[in-house]
């Protein structure tokens, strides 16, 4: 089984990060035993000194314990006060004796008790781990460790860095270490020249602590030359920061746009092409999201892969629901598109209540796979969140796949013919019933896929669909009904407009302004961004 999963992991494009929490099987030096006992007995407020001593005495050997503790997996056996790690891997709980490093027979929840940590302890643990990792074999780990220590350069830390600097092999790591030392010099040097030199060394660095220090110096250093040097260095840094902030905003806009696109794209088919005012579109999205939830319920140990299962499943579930809806209701409403508004509104109420009844009215928890969590840190001021990045790519992928499908298969042509003149389409031998069902199923299925993506960003609850229906219609219409490219452009332009307005006006006003913009824009182009042209469109 594990093999299989591992293979799958590679195949999926190495998106997996091995779980950080992994208790090593190396035993701890027995000298630490009394300290561990002290840790067990200590109240939250007294634990800090114990940890300091553990770090000092345990050295690198204590790392597994610290990691376990940081992850909240550190327990002790009530009877013997021995510390153990309780980890859950692939659904199985393993309990390890940390002193001996050996697994122990499983104890029940009642026999063990958790060693509590709070924020300040977590901070301390993290720093300690960083310090201990200065000696790690991996250069990137060492580099990350130094960066993590930048904000809190206590004398002990500095000493550790200095020592590590001496036999550091990697140039990159050395650079960061030098930066840390320069930063320290900037903060502590009494000679102005020293500080100026430190400033020169720090020029161009985007690290937050560096900027803060420079800012402080620029404002309040007693020596004017130092102040000027810091100001000069800051100008350069700020320029870069602003540039990255712009990129950041652009990314936010694109990301919001991709969400809008995903939500709207199915509607662009059911409404834009088929002409069904599908008020239940939001509920199709919701079905997709709930499918993700159910898939995760069924495979609790393989959350990392769950989305790959959920995407086709959501497509099928929502698509089938769409086909059913088309066959049972919408089919009878051809030529009466307005009635579809009424009927699908009813259907959306029923679907909402249905999930309320089946899944309870509460939000459901959908976990994010490891590979979608966190962010891609390009530099200290620019990091793109992974989930958004994936969703952006995914939205584009879905969009272009759909375009291709409609272009290459006869479905695209047939559905347009059917929507323009049903009787004539039938006279040309098009099985309109089949085309309708397939198209509606396709639109709904894509809405379902959108639901999978949205489950990674927001609530999975009965109201999920309602939150997106208005926006979806807005995007489709703004782009020009019946034009998929219009939907794409509309989604991204609305997303970007929103995100560039938001810092200036605040979130609420930004939304209002975007709406007002839509209203005014439609005055100018009464048929949306990409209007249908020609005599017939009049």
């Amino acid at each position: 089984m594990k093999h299989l999963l591992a293979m799958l992991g590679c195949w999926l494009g190495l998106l997996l990060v091995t779980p950080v929490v992994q208790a090593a099987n190396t035993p701890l030096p027995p000298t630490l035993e009394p300290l561990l006992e002290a840790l067990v007995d200590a109240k939250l407020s007294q634990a800090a000194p114990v940890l300091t001593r553990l770090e000092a005495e345990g050295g690198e050997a204590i790392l597994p314990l610290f990691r376990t503790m940081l992850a909240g997996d550190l327990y002790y056996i009530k009877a013997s006060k021995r510390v153990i790690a309780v980890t859950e891997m692939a659904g199985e709980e393993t309990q390890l004796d940390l002193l001996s490093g050996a697994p122990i027979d499983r104890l029940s929840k009642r026999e063990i008790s958790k060693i509590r940590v709070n924020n300040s302890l977590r901070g301390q643990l993290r720093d300690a781990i960083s310090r201990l990792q200065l000696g790690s074999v991996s250069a990137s780990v060492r580099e990350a460790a130094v960066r993590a220590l930048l904000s809190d350069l206590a004398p002990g830390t500095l000493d550790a860095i200095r020592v590590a600097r001496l036999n550091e092999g990697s140039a990159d790591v050395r650079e960061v270490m030098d930066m840390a030392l320069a930063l320290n010099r900037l903060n502590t040097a009494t000679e102005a020249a020293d500080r100026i030199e430190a400033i020169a060394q720090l020029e161009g660095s985007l690290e937050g602590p560096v900027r803060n220090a420079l800012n402080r110096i620029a404002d309040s250093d007693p020596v004017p030359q130092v102040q000027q040097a810091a100001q000069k260095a800051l100008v350069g840094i700020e320029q870069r920061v602003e540039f990255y902030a712009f990129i950041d905003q652009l990314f936010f806009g694109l990301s919001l746009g991709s969400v809008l696109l995903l939500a709207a794209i199915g509607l662009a088919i059911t409404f834009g092409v088929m002409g069904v005012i599908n008020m239940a579109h939001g509920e199709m999205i919701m079905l997709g999201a709930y499918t993700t939830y159910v898939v995760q319920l069924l495979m609790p140990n393989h959350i990392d892969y769950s989305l790959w299962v959920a995407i086709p499943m959501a497509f099928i579930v929502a698509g089938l629901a769409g086909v059913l809806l088309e066959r049972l209701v919408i089919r009878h409403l051809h030529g009466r598109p307005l009635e579809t508004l009424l009927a699908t509104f009813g259907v959306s109420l029923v679907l909402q209540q249905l999930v309320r009844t089946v899944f309870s009215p509460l939000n459901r928890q959908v976990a994010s796979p490891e590979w979608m969590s966190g962010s891609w840190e390009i530099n200290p001021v620019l990091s793109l969140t992974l989930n958004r990045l994936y969703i952006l790519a995914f939205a584009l992928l879905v969009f272009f796949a759909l375009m291709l499908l409609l272009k290459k298969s006869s479905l695209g042509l047939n559905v347009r013919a059917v929507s323009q003149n049903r009787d004539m389409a039938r006279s040309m031998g098009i099985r309109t019933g089949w085309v309708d069902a397939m198209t509606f199923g396709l639109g709904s299925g894509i809405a379902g896929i959108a639901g999978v993506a949205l489950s990674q960003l927001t609530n999975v609850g009965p109201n999920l669909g309602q939150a997106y229906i208005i926006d979806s219609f807005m995007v489709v219409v703004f782009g020009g009904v019946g034009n998929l490219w219009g939907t794409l452009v509309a989604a991204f332009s609305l997303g970007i407009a929103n995100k560039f307005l938001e810092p200036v006006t605040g979130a609420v006003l930004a939304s209002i302004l975007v709406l007002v913009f839509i209203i005014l824009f439609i005055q100018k182009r009464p048929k949306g961004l990409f209007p249908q042209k020609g005599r017939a469109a009049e």
Partner: protein
Amino acid sequence: MNWLTQLFAAGRTPGNRVLPFVTVLFAVTALASMANLLLPETSPLHVSTYTITLLGKYLSYAMLALAVDVIWGYCGILSLGHGAFFALGGYAMGMYLMRQIGDRSVYGNPDLPDFMVFLNWDSLPWYWLGMDQFWFAMLMVLLVPGVLAFVFGWLAFRSRVTGVYLSIMTQALTYALMLAFFRNEMGFGGNNGLTDFKEILGFDLQSDATRVALFAITALLLGLIYVVSHLILKSRMGKVIVAIRDGESRTRFLGYRTDRYKVWLFVYSALIAAIAGAMYVPQVGIINPGEFSPLNSIEVVVWVAVGGRGTLYGAVIGVLLVNYAKTRFTAIMPEGWLFALGLLFVLVTLYLPKGLAGLWGQLTAGRQRKADTALPQEAHP
């Protein structure tokens, strides 16, 4: 764009049964009012105040539905934002009622409504000035939504925005207003809106007599609006309006400036909605930005569709049925009422293509056809 044109071409225009409608409306109103005021509570025929306020609410909604029906059913303008005019009318009325509270408010500040005291406003914003005068407030009930509808309609219809594009614009309008009114900086009480009203024109809002009076006035206004709408729609102007629905550009070639007709009708409809809002607020006792929510406006469209668009009485019937169903269902089957309501919508669409009003037509199909070939016999009020 075959379906787009179909989208906005509704059925034909049968008579509106003015006399029966108005008679029934006034009779029920009079009976219910008397049964509430004159009969003792123990009497089995007594109509509770609860029922009176409920009916009052329904009738306000009926006005709103009428407003939507006039522009949608007859002129093909599907407004998904009529709630905006309703709510604006409601807010104007709410502001008046709020000012009537005076120093009986929680903080006892005679000039500032509670929520302003609460958020440290030190004086009344300019747009609240004058709202303590009934006549001025009533003027605003009409003026604000009227002007908004005029400007909006004038812009939209002049640029020939039609169909879904127009619908989405109206939706954007109400959505933007909702977000704006949610903002506490706007000075309309944010999410909480305006509530805790005490009296109107010196009459205690909590007394039965005032309630009955409000209800009766609502009924009267509804009747009046019904008759006026009917007269408008059966005049030549009404024919032009329907012609615009079915072929706007053709109508232009006949020499009618269709944009003006549409603006005019849109304003008329917005005013009805505003009056409905103004009557709604004192009867339910609260107005808040939720009324601007696009889904509310869509629901109004659904009422009209259920009742049967393109007939005035259909709209009213739709309102009564759906809202009564809602009231009953939320009490009898609080967990499952959405199923019932949703199914109702689906079934009505499937089996009653012309709504409930069409049911009447279906039952009397024979008579109807005869009337088609004979002289048009519009009922005169």
